[in-house]
Structure formats: C-alpha cells, structure tokens
C-alpha cells in the first residue's frame, strides 16, 4: 500500500529520532545559560542526531558501497565530534571564561 515497505518505515523511525535529537540540541543551544552548558547540548545531541540520520540513510539504501561509506562516516563522527567539543571546551577554559553557577543570571 502506497509503496512503503518495512525498511522504509524503519529508516523513517531512525531519521525522526535523529531530527528529535537535533532539535533538542538546537533548543539547548538557545536556552542554556552559558558557553559550557551549551556545549553539553550541541556536543551530545549532534553526535547521536547525525548518527541516527545516517543510520536511517543506510537502512534506506540497503546493502551497497554507499551504505559502507555511510558506516565509515558514522565511525569518523564518533571519533571526531567528542574531540572537537573537548578542544573548544579546553580553549574556553584556558582563556579564562568563568563557568556559570546556579542562581546567576544569563550571560
């Protein structure tokens, strides 16, 4: 019916999960009070959001070279994303940016 198979539905579920986490990350970027806490939102939600979307694409594509390439994309995102977050965090910390404490106003 409507030409939608089981693999399509599974890939749609994965992509919808990815979209949810990306939106949560974006909301966090806007709502959280300072630089460090914003990195919590972007660093974590972006990793899983991207990975879920790419997994959805892999399932949609099926067993071919394209999905193997996408798998390596997931691998490199898992390696690179935490390192990037950590590098930005370290730079901010040693530049002397004070972390936000509970009860302070927004920066």
């Amino acid at each position, binding site marked *: 019916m409507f030409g939608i198979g089981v693999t399509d539905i599974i890939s749609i579920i994965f992509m919808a999960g990815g979209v*949810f986490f990306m939106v949560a990350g974006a909301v*966090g970027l806007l*709502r959280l009070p300072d630089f460090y806490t914003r990195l919590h939102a972007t660093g*974590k939600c972006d990793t899983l959001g991207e990975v879920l979307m790419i997994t959805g694409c892999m399932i949609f594509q099926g067993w*071919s070279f394209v999905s*193997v390439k996408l798998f390596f994309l997931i691998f490199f995102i898992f390696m690179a994303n935490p390192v990037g977050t950590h590098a930005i965090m*370290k730079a901010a*910390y040693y530049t002397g940016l004070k*972390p936000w404490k*509970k009860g302070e106003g927004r920066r």
Partner: protein
Amino acid sequence: MIKRSTVAVFIVMFAFWVLLSACIKPLQGHYDHIRIVVGMICAAITTSVSRDLLITGKENMTLRKTFRLLLYIPWELWQIVLANFDVAYRVLHPKMPIDPCIIEFDTTLRSDFALTTLANSITLTPGTITIDVEPERGRFLVHAIASKAADALLVDQTMQNKVAHVYMEEGGGE
C-alpha cells in the same frame, strides 16, 4: 627491508581506497583497473607519509584489546543514548534542572589509547565533558552539568574500571 607495520598500513589504506572508489565487483561496484593502479600509487604515498601514525608498535596484546574494545562499544552506545535523553530532558524541562560544576579526578590509566578512549567516553556520556587531561598523572578535568552526573565519575567509577579493563592497565579487572 620493509617493516611489517608499513605493509599493514599500505593494505589498510588500499582497502579504504577500494571502498571509497567502489572499483570491485561485489556490493554493486564495477571493476576498473585504472582506479586500482591509481589507488596503489595513492596508498603508497599516504603510507610513506603516515606509516608511524597508524600503527606505532608500542602496544602489545593488540588482538585481545581489540576484542575487549568491541565488547565495550555496545555499552558505550547505550550510554550515549542515555546521555542524549538526559540532555533533551534538561533542555526541554521548563525550569532547566542544571547545576554545573568542575571536578578533578585521578586515574591509573597512562597509555595514549586508554586516555583518549576515556576522554571521548566522558564527553559522550550523561552530563559530563572532558576539559583537560594530564597524561603523566592520568588526571582528568571534567565539566559536569549536574552534581549527580559528577558522582558517576567520582564515586562509582564504572567507566574508569571498564576502560582500564579494556586496555589491561592496573586497577581494572574487578
């Protein structure tokens, strides 16, 4: 005399080229011998530049560590999912239950791979991001979004023990 690690790096690089250019028959690729030759040349150049980076030769019992790392990855993936639900909850909650703090702790880990794995794991798991690592003392500086997330690293130390077990450093294997 060509070293064994150099050959291994060349094979890895060439296999990766074959993967990216899709120039063999299986998996819906199409064979192309010019691409194979060009790929061998490129793999040789890459190997000559980066042969000391991929395989350092310092590690021993690599196979066993790889196997233990493969067992560690599913647990880590589950922790990442939990971390994302945690962040999504904190962000979407109207009052935003956050209480950031910076904590420091020492570990028994010393090797580069173990420290990198633990630092990346901390960044990806609930409520914590690594700020800095001192490799000599195995000291980690971590920013936690709530004190409960900090307790997981300071009190339980599940993750340190798991990583120590993977890389067979002291303190692991309980």
